[in-house]
């Protein structure tokens, strides 16, 4: 059987791409292997761990549960796009650094993508709400407390920056 190929056009972190993809290529694998954006991690490939979370038109989704061909016409954002062009880290990244919110870092890109979108929509969350927002991202190292602390701090920093 001839591979079922499709031409797709989309943006990742504002950069425009046009590529041929085979229909069975997962978006997670496509980002990593075809575009070299290996910041998006792959853990379970069935939607449970959250490591592969990216933004699709601004909303967090599992890139392991989408086909690359479904990205046609869409705007994607990955962890590579969080820091500014000059290299200054996003406030959520800064807070993760300051609070030791990561150890091995495997879960971190997914957590960053989930939480930047969450905090943009909910600037003043309670600690319980932060835990709920984090519930779809597994971390085997930190025990979560430092991540929660980082998110509360990041929310405060972002409120200060844009009151």
């Amino acid at each position, binding site marked *: *059987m001839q*591979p*079922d190929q*499709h031409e797709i056009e989309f943006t990742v972190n504002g950069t425009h791409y046009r590529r041929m993809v*085979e*229909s*069975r*290529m*997962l978006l997670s*694998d496509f980002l990593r292997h075809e575009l070299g954006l290996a910041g998006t991690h792959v853990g379970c*490939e*069935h*939607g449970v761990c*959250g490591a592969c*979370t990216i933004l*699709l038109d601004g*909303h*967090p*989704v*599992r890139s*392991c*549960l*989408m*086909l690359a*061909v*479904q990205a*046609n016409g869409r705007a994607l954002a990955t962890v590579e796009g969080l820091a500014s062009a000059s290299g200054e880290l996003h406030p959520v990244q800064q807070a993760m650094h300051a609070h030791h919110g990561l150890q091995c870092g495997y879960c971190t890109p997914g957590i960053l993508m*989930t939480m930047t979108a*969450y905090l943009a929509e909910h600037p003043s969350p309670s600690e319980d709400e932060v835990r*709920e*927002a984090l*519930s*779809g*991202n597994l971390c085997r190292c930190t025990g979560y407390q430092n991540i929660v602390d980082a998110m509360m701090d990041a929310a405060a920093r972002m409120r200060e920056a844009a009151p």
Partner: protein
Amino acid sequence: MKPAPFKFVAASSLDHALALKAEHGDEARFLAGGQSLIPAMNFRLARPSVLIDINALTGLAGIDRSETGQVRVGALTRYRALERDGDFLRACPLFADALPHIAHPQIRNRGTIGGNLSHADPASELPALAVAMQAEMRIRSAAGGRTVAASDFFAGLLTTDLASDEMLVDITFPVLAPRSGACFMEIARRRGDFAIAGVAAIVTLDEERRCASVRLALCGVGETPVDAGAATSPMLGSRVTGEVIDTVAAGVRELIAPSGNVHGSPDYQRHVAGVLVQRAIRTAHQRIGHAA
């Protein structure tokens, strides 16, 4: 690449999607949110040879109210849209309780009500809601259309009444009767996991504030959502007391036949189901309010 090879077609209209399904039958699957189908394909538990992507069919998404107050929800409506629609949650309060239990925000951003109901996972919340609320499922094929009651839609484990050329296009939820209260509750091992047991209850009182009807449906305790209506007869015509609620819970424990799983034995599931029945009926009753 994990899924086995397939041909991908982005349907450009409902007729296009239905024509493709008529042509390819069981070999083809509709791709909605992909939150159940893609994991199954990644594991190669599902190997459709044709994938009909319906995500561009925006006419299949959305919520409207008829003049009579019935709520019609398009099959492609995502959980994300449902949980952010205050009017919908007020009209269908069981959804306000149940949606936060479905997976995680990232999955709710993609998953659709039609995909959920067509997938017919017996542990899923929404089939039980559809049965409790006496929803009507509207089905289309290239050859025509029909409507099926939720109670007849769920045929077995991951199996519905849909034929190989059919699509679920929308779901209609009747208006809650006056003096009604509703509650959904579940217990799962971890936030967002499928339930060990879950209960949807709708209690309606008559003008003397005696129980006029109780709708009770459970998830996670059988091969399909379980309509526990048969266990509710002790409540009908009586005041909603602790004693009568206990009788109903005992009846539900008798009625269900959970098979047990890694999260709990059949006895444990039966126990949890009974406790949830008590709590859900009590809460539904409290929510009726006195103004109504």
